[in-house]
């Protein structure tokens, strides 16, 4: 019974991988993969020697790590808080409301945020009301990475929280009953029962997210960045977009993409080992 699945995966997932060859070629579409010249590691060397390579790498890393951490922390915190709410309809509607943004595309959300975050926008009106100075969130290198991380959290945390809420429902209610009998208060219940009960899910998601460490969010940044914040906002993917699609350097783009995949693969393997060793948890 497995055979059709294996065939499908082979054809659609493995066969197309021969395309990575173009990362080692001076690829010209018209000559095709079989006809283009091999140039070995030329493009990898080209990328590493690019003067702004470390800058792009750092931006990618900072934004991606910031998102992974902030997304998870906020989602966990929100799930814990929501779990304490006893009014069912309130809990449900809140949950639905916060995960709706997940279904909107960045093109839409980006447009909205450009208005909200404008120096004349409502957020800055609020900041000014509190007596602070207005900040140009999308045009200042001081704020841009911060803004990318927190707008991403705004969009994603509701959805991530659902996974944690699901984990919470699997905790045996008897544990809470006996804890109450033993005199544990709410905070102690959370610390001793709820969080350990969620641990497996947290480790699972953390591990899966490690594979995303090179993904700083192409769409979001393409929609929201501008020349003033290239220094902090230009990431690997936006560079690949400009060099690969706009300038037609397919081999260069493929080399960068392959490099990213290799790093992500290594990270996933490492984190999987770590999760197994320290948490005794096996995902696969």
């Amino acid at each position, binding site marked *: 019974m497995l055979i059709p699945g294996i065939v499908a995966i082979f054809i659609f997932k493995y066969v197309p991988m021969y395309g990575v060859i173009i990362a080692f070629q001076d690829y010209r579409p018209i*000559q095709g993969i079989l006809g283009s010249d091999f140039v070995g590691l030329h493009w990898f060397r080209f990328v590493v020697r690019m003067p702004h390579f470390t800058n792009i790498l750092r931006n990618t890393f900072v934004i991606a790590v910031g998102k992974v951490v902030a997304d998870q922390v906020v989602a966990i915190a929100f799930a814990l808080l929501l779990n304490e709410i006893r009014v069912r309809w309130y809990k449900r509607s809140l949950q639905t409301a916060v995960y709706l943004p997940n279904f909107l595309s960045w093109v839409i959300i980006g447009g909205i945020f450009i208005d909200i975050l404008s120096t004349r926008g409502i957020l800055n009106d609020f900041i000014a009301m509190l007596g602070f100075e207005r900040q140009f969130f999308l045009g200042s290198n001081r704020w841009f990475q911060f803004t990318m991380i927190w707008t991403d959290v705004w969009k994603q945390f509701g959805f991530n929280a659902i996974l944690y809420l699901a984990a919470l429902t699997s905790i045996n209610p008897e544990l809470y009953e006996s804890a109450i009998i033993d005199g544990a208060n709410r905070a102690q219940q959370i610390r001793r029962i709820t969080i350990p009960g969620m641990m497996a899910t947290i480790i699972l998601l953390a591990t899966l997210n490690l594979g995303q460490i090179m993904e700083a969010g192409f769409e979001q940044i393409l929609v929201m960045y501008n020349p*003033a914040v290239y220094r902090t906002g230009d990431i690997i993917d936006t560079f690949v977009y400009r060099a690969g699609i706009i300038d*037609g350097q397919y081999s260069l783009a493929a080399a960068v993409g392959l490099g990213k995949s290799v790093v992500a693969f290594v990270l996933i393997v490492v984190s999987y080992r770590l999760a197994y060793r320290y948490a005794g948890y096996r995902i696969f």
Partner: protein
Amino acid sequence: MARRGLVIVVAVLLIGLAVAGTAFGRGVDEEMVAPEPQFVDGRFEPPITITTPMSVHDPDNWPDGQSFADNPFIWWVERELGIRIEPSYYFPDHDTNVERLMLAAAADDMPDVIYAPDQDIARLAREGASMPLDDIFEQYASPLTEYLIEVAQESVGGTLFYPTTVDGQFYGAPHSPENVWEKNWIRSDLLEEFGLDMPETLDDLEVAPEAYHEAYPEGRAFAMANDLHAASMVFHAMGAYPEMWVERNGELEYGSIQPETRDALARLAEWYENGWIDSEFVVHDFGPAVLEPAAAGNLFANHGAWWFIWWPWVGMWENNPEAQIMPFPPLERPDGERVAVLSSPFYGWSTGIRAGFEYPEALIYLLNEKVDSYHRNNLELREIMAERGYEFKYPVTEVQEPLNPEAEQPFLYQYDYEMPGWGFFNELGETHFNRAVGFFTYSLPDRLFRRDGMFQRIYHAYQEGTIDQLRAEDRAEFRNLSDIERRLETHLRSVEIVMDLQERDAIEYDRFLGAPTPSMAEHDAYLTRIEEETFVGIIMGDRSIEAFDRFVDQWLDGGGAAISEEVNEWFIGLEQ
């Protein structure tokens, strides 16, 4: 059991490979059996098919039942030349077209006719995806087509094919030169209110936004998007030509790294500091930066295309009955000249042919036919060509008026399609049909040859009060222009400025008109980034003006030196 499992897996892999294998090779050609098409007596027999991208600007503007793929032009081409025209894909705007074309190129599935910006045509040429046209034109162009190219070459100093020339052969024929008109725009009603004249120098101009900013602190004194395009008004007035190549001591140098650009950036930084440029211009592209304030009547000065009269100025005229925006000629440069410097004498787009297309000559036959039909009423040209032994295929015919001259748009005109040739269109410039396929008739030699486009005809007729003697298409254009009185006034001034520049021979071009060099593609992503971030940073005051000097060094080290070398090689090649 384990072994059996292994056998199954191996079998699956083999099947997979076999399936994938067929994807590498092309299937057997089914047309092998059909007879080879021949071009006999001016016609392909059996008919051939040409695929081409088609533009869908105004999808509703077709007379009943017709469409891009099905209209009198398409019928005529098939009937007359045995060429079937089929759309390969439709595109709503130029950017989408380029994106589709590049993906099609990457998938090796290109349309037969390529329609793209010059630099993309050149790139495709380097990749071997498009076809050199020298031999094809030489072999198949009619004497008339050849003559018109000659005339066109003369009028642009022999540069006609430079933008798409790669390794000595050209890969694309350029489009109309008329679209490049760019204007400095300013609110003339407010100038009057402030008691100021039309500015002639940058110093004159600076008085105006100051007055405006004082009176309307919320308005956009100088509307500029984050591409800095509008800043050309200031750059050019200071003799700075960023993103173009200038000649210095017999060599070409990149305009963005010249000291004039440094000075102009410092000046723009002052404007920004003064609040004349929107503090958030950097997050805004053309829409929010120019269109929105313009439509709201909240904009004072700008630099942009002549066609702004169709939009966004219409919004301003509709919303504010007092507002009037007028073009003004280029400001006086430090050397005392008032010249327009354009990035190219052409529109920047060319038509080429896919490499490996079996019947490239068909497109030249089509062009021959189009120019013959189109110029048939040009008696002067008929005479010139008679001396050269060329006989027109189509006779002189009466100027055709549309059957329904009351139609709202020229696209909706109906003609007597039984006319010979495609003489049923008097003017091919502005119909859907001319966008349909192949080399643009007017792109090549026509507009350049006649040098008196529709707008000039309208201008003169208006001055002489003879609008009613114009042809239907021109009258329709006049009607469209004058349905807002202020638009007519603005546009006539626009035409006047261009005619004056032409008369004074005061139009200059980017000194590098060649196809992008190999180093340009390689380093563009990085060099563009440092240029944009430095310029924007200086204007916004995030970086000091010294950042410009660092940028110059970075630019030269990061590939700019190699680019300069290649550009100068091209330049030396020109002189030889």
